[in-house]
């Protein structure tokens, strides 16, 4: 082997930029985990934030990285939710972690099957198909009421302790730690995924599918894969909801849920993985505050946020996330500068 050229050394550094950890990321996760001990009386809402964050992360995988506009992402959330609840209720898989993986896999199967419907057509077609799939699943859950409990929801679910040791307590202490760990693990996987050639290929498909094909990328296969993975994530998120509340109902499939999810992700910003997580925190805190003020008119405020976001411009509204990104870039440049000097 010959000695790599200077450009090759720089390239070796630069191409790892997406994989490199930024200090703020450590801060973020340390803060998140310290909430286990620092905010014990907020664990119920933190649990909701954790599974919502995972759900939004799942949407980010397809919207932020692959450019697929979906208005029916609740479909997979719902499948995961019912799967987790049913597995526990009928004693098929009683250990929550295993059941959660199973719920995710079932959602992934549904995601894989419906992904082929999402390959064709423009934004509107995709939007309608995703919406239609969620509606069909909701109707199915409604019709098979013997299994799902129909409009009353699936009641009488009891959850076994996690790993046979940690019981879901009524204050949500163990539930939160559980959700947070699941979120963290799946986040790490997503982070890794997006720093891989596969992740780059997705970004290229989103940016320019024509050229992606012209350099030999099998665009359809990539989209099917990421859609399936995102369905797995959404299914796990739905499973977490079912496990922490020991309940599942038809509204897991609802349009509002898919629409709210878009808002969650958009508040935080798409395409850098943390958007869904940050968005979930903001959304839930806002909901907690506004819903107490005017529970009935809460949708009005969601609507207003959406309208203002678009009117002012998402880019401009999300400029507050820029410091994070520019700081990351600047650190990169410094690293490169040193590389050049040596």
């Amino acid at each position, binding site marked *: 082997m010959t000695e790599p050229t200077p*450009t090759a050394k720089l390239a070796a550094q630069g191409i*790892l930029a997406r*994989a490199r950890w930024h200090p703020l990321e450590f801060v973020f996760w340390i803060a998140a985990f310290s909430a286990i001990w620092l905010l014990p009386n907020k664990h119920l809402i933190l649990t909701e934030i954790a599974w919502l964050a995972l759900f939004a992360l799942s949407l980010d995988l397809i919207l932020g990285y692959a450019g697929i506009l979906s208005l029916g992402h609740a479909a997979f959330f719902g499948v995961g939710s019912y799967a987790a609840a049913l597995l526990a209720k009928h004693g098929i898989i009683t250990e929550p972690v295993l059941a959660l993986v199973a719920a995710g896999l079932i959602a992934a199967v549904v995601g894989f099957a419906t992904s082929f419907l999402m390959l064709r057509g423009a934004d509107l077609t995709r939007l309608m198909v995703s919406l239609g799939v969620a509606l069909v699943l909701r109707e199915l859950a409604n019709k098979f009421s013997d299994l799902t409990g129909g409009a009353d929801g699936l009641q009488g679910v009891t959850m076994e302790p996690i790993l046979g040791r940690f019981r879901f307590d009524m204050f949500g202490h163990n539930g939160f730690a559980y959700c947070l760990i699941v979120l963290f693990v799946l986040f790490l996987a997503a982070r890794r995924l997006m720093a891989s050639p596969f992740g780059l290929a997705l970004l290229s498909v989103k*940016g320019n599918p024509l050229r992606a*094909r*012209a350099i*030999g990328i099998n665009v359809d*296969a990539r989209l099917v894969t990421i859609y399936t993975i995102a369905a797995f994530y959404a299914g796990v998120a739905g499973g977490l909801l079912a496990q922490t509340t020991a309940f599942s109902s038809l509204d897991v499939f609802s349009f509002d849920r898919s629409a709210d999810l878009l808002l969650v992700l958009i508040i935080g910003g798409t395409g850098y993985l943390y958007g869904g997580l940050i968005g979930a925190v903001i959304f839930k805190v806002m909901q907690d505050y506004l819903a107490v003020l005017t529970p009935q008119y809460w949708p009005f405020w969601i609507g207003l946020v959406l309208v203002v976001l678009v009117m002012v411009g998402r880019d401009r509204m999300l400029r507050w996330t820029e410091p994070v990104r520019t700081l990351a870039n600047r650190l990169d440049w410094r690293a490169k500068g040193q590389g050049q000097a040596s």
Partner: protein
Amino acid sequence: MTVALETTNLVKQFGGLTATDNVSIQFEAGARHALIGPNGAGKTTLINLLTGMLKPTSGRIILNGVDITDASPQRRVRLGMVRTFQINQLFPDLTPLETVGLAISERRGDGADFWRVAGTKPGLNQEIADILDRFRLADVMNAKTSILPYGKQRLLEIAVAIACKPKVLLLDEPAAGVPDEERHEILSSIAALPKDVTVVLIEHDMDIVFAFSERISVLVNGGVFTEGPAAEVARDPRVKAVYLGESLDA
């Protein structure tokens, strides 16, 4: 001489309009072959047919002995035929480094690898670096493609295609709109392509065409008007009439 790429009786109709009219053309291995013709002659349509961006109405396309008429665009790339675009088609969110790295990963069959971090395969970085150096992109390798100056984008447009290590390279007006100083870089990089690579060039600039090509096909109204060695075509008065005159006037 072996034929690298060949079409037989290729036809493409859009509704009532015939954009490609019974084109049978052969590109020999290692050829430097230019396709010229006035605007609307069907040059870009032909490229789109060859690369699978469009499906022909009838006719066949053979690449190195393989019938690829019905093959997907990505399969044709894997079989060694790569194109560039007249209007830059790049990935705005990726850096030149990532763009070239992606093309190389795809070619090596690592593109579906979703666990290994990009850039950790042995030898990859050196190959990326060589291409970046060759196309003078090393200094901007970590900048987002969307903010690069036009000339650099144009270089990247061709660098990506080269990164796919084509056996047949289709260049659609590679120097279009490029300022003079960078134009030279593009042309010299094309001239430096290995001899066994078949290069098909679509170009309006006759200086480039004659400097570069050994053989010229003239397309008019979707059909092959005439074809021959560059010097012969240049002397052909009919070609002057349909095309050269028009472009020299301009």
